[in-house]
């Protein structure tokens, strides 16, 4: 079952002489429950593709169908709703708010959802427990190691119960052992039914995924299982 589909997506930055084509007609289909890696050299358009997939950026042209809806025509308000309920992110440098506690960071996506606070609190506690970070609830992210911070970021991505998790170099800032642990965790999450798309430079990380999409000069050049 298709969860998202890109049809001839282009993304152009700048105008005139400074025009840069980051994506040049990308066609891509991702099925529900896929665990896919996007690889490619620097400047190939991986991050742009991920931003468009995550509704953080809009394409210059083309069609983006997410769960049957055309996202490319959506307004900011609808896009933020999708970012809250359908797509979650895990960033290379974790993107946690340093002034807030671990608990507050995980709670963040739930602040946009309307159900009782107690229920939200229970949900945050559940994911903290699942990811083994419940004892850090009151700590600030800066008091945690890289691996622990990435677990907080994953807990935050899971708490909103989104169908798709987009991860941008999730192991990029971690040592190899912690990186491997994290990949095992992502595999476990994928097995629970979530669709995961990650961008990586690391072959070992890509090997853990179901298939790898290679991108070069803004175009998909290969897809390997």
């Amino acid at each position, binding site marked *: 079952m298709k969860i998202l589909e890109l049809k001839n997506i282009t993304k152009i930055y700048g105008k005139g002489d400074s025009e840069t084509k980051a994506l040049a007609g990308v066609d891509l289909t991702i099925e529900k429950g896929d665990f896919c890696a996007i690889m490619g050299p620097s400047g190939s358009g991986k991050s742009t593709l991920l*931003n468009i997939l995550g509704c953080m950026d809009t394409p210059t042209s083309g069609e983006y169908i997410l769960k049957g809806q055309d996202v490319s025509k959506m307004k900011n*308000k609808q896009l933020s*709703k999708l970012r809250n309920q359908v797509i979650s992110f895990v960033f290379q440098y974790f993107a*946690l708010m340093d002034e807030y506690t671990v608990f507050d960071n995980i709670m963040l*996506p739930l602040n946009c959802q309307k159900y009782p606070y107690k229920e939200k609190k229970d949900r945050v506690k559940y994911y903290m427990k699942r990811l083994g970070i419940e004892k850090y609830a009151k700590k600030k992210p800066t008091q945690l190691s890289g691996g622990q911070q990435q677990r907080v970021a994953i807990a935050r991505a899971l708490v*909103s119960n989104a169908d798709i998790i987009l991860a941008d170099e999730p192991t990029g800032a971690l040592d190899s052992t912690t990186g491997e642990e994290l990949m095992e965790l992502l595999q476990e999450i994928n097995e629970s039914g979530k669709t995961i798309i990650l961008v990586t430079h690391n072959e070992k990380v890509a090997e853990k995924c179901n298939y790898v999409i290679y991108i070069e000069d803004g175009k998909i050049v290969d897809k390997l299982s």
Partner: protein
Amino acid sequence: MKEILKSISKRTLFNILIFLQVLFSILYFFSTTISMQAVVNSNISANSELDSNPKRTLHMLIQNEDSKYFSKFKEELLNANLVNGLTGWRNSDLTPDTRVIGDTEDDFDSVELAKGCENLKKINVATGRYFTDADFRKENATGSKSKPFLMILGSEFANNQNLKVGDSYHDVNDKYYKVVGILEPNSKWFYQTVSEGMIMVIDNAVMVAYVNDSENPIMHYYSILNDNVNSDDAIYKINKIAKKYNIVVEAKTISTELNETYSESVSQDISWVIFSLIILVFVTIGTSILIVSHMYMRKNEIGIRMACGYSFKKVLLLLWGEFLVVSILAFLSALLIAYISCSGGKEIIYSAYYFSSFHLSYGIVLIGIGIFLLMCIPSLLVLVFKLRKVQPKDLIGGK
């Protein structure tokens, strides 16, 4: 709201800075406008409380009344057919004989009125009578048990002390007073001088007939000009008589005095009000710049929020909310400080209270609210314009 308060608590230093900026600029604005208003109010209250014509009523500040020539000066002045009497009053206090030494809380306000004061402002006696000419004579009132001073009580004072017409009152200085009347509730008199515009409510105070006392002389005298006398001529002649008896007199009509104070204070206060408005403009610009630079400092956080599903509107409301909560708190604090400093327009000295011209009126509060809103608008708008341009992907940076 909980989220806004939490966010404020995470940026204490920045919010304290905004708070102090708004607090002091608004407070300064309040103090200048209150001062400006006080000048206008003094003029209005003095004119409205005075029953005699301010243009025909002279105020004489006599600085050496205790000199041996004062009575001669007074006699010649009255014989010159310039004015209809020479009157005045002293604001004083009355100490009950039950008072514990050092405890001034038991003292009562009293106004010692000289003969003729009732020509300046009507005194309404509810029970008993007003003072007669004989009550002001030294031979009739010495403060002894047989020749007590005569007094008229404020309605609240009479009730609280359980005194009625004909009763005696004994004070700590072994002076006796006899009650001749009780005032109507809400009776008023001037505090110190007419032009100061401070009005005393006599309800919990007393009026005593002033008997010439060289130890405690009256300094401010008032006279109503005779019908055929020109005020400038009268002042010239009064100064001449005073010089003859080596008395230092500063005589002016009340209207002249009020006008002089008004124009002097208004010209002074207007420059302070303008200065406070300039400060408000600078604070507004400064706050807007501070808000925008702070927004850039928080771009990572804003990006994270947007990536987690916060809409433009929700982020904007959060930033607006933080700014407004801090600013409104600062405004309310300024309002409270201004109100407390003015004692709500009432001043208590012993037992009575005085309407002070320095007070926070509804008008000033409304103008303050208007100014505050104008101060907030640029900061709120600048947030909209700056935030509108950002995309979450631009905001989330690496470490």
